[in-house]
């Protein structure tokens, strides 16, 4: 049975159940506090969206394996634009099967050019580093 967290959408006023993902992000702030994507707050399971991160205060951004605790992180500079998304890949063969790739990293302007550094966690937990969001997915 999957573990679900509650997401309260401030725009619509609706609440949604969000299944716990295999890899989750954590934003550490300069004042020592942090924001977890999937969190326990006042005894309640709460889901936070990526856009809830206070970009002015974030000092370190991490992706953590729920199963193993493995952690990938980087220090966040003021010039960095954080990136995080899921790439879902669904194969329609005998019955549909969906895979998830966890992508997180940053974009930074260097020597007048926008450059990206993206960590990609594949379905088998292999980790690669990409410089574009249009990397090839081969399952």
């Amino acid at each position, binding site marked *: 049975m999957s573990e679900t967290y509650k997401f309260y959408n401030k725009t619509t006023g609706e609440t*949604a159940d969000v299944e716990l993902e295999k890899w989750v992000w954590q934003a550490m702030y300069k004042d020592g506090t942090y924001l977890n994507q999937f969190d326990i707050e006042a005894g309640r399971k709460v889901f936070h*969206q990526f*856009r809830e991160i206070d970009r002015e205060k974030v000092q370190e951004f991490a992706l953590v394996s729920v199963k193993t605790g493995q952690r990938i992180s980087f220090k966040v500079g003021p010039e960095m634009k954080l990136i995080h998304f899921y790439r879902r890949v669904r194969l329609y063969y005998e019955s549909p099967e969906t895979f998830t790739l966890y992508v997180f990293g940053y974009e930074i302007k260097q020597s007048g050019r926008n450059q990206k550094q993206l960590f990609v966690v594949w379905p088998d937990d292999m980790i690669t580093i990409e410089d574009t969001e249009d990397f*090839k997915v*081969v399952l």
Partner: protein
Amino acid sequence: MAATVVLNEYNGAGETKTANVTNVNMGNTDAPNLDPNAYPIEPGNNSYEKWNKLEVTALGGVSTVKNFKVYRSGALGGAATHLTSCKTSAYSAPTYAQPVATDSTVAVNAMPTSEPASANLGIGGSLTGELTAAGETDYLVHQIQTDPTDTAGSTSTLTVAWDEIA
């Protein structure tokens, strides 16, 4: 899954919608979830066009769904071709027309056999379109066209990829 994404199929003159189809088997009838053994494509003929859409029925905790890519892996029998409306440039959204088994005038591009470098299925007529609420992509139209010397019974996998920002 954070967002719930399903594949729908549309059939007939009345654009009858079948939600959340489990396969995209191609054959000589205009029907969803068809049995290809019961409705085989005779060598030299075309399949009926498939008119599909991807639909986000619930966002869950996701704020944006975008960047839909459609492609096929696996060889077709003989010289058969798999054609689609999907493309990565000069894109426009197809307007529904009853599926036909004559040469499609909508599915005219080769279906990619590996992941395209960028989106090839749009939202609201744009390849950079986004879904920020429940809604559908544009139509994904595709058809198999065969040659009289082709071999019957090939199987291949249709792959759909998309990005979710949570």
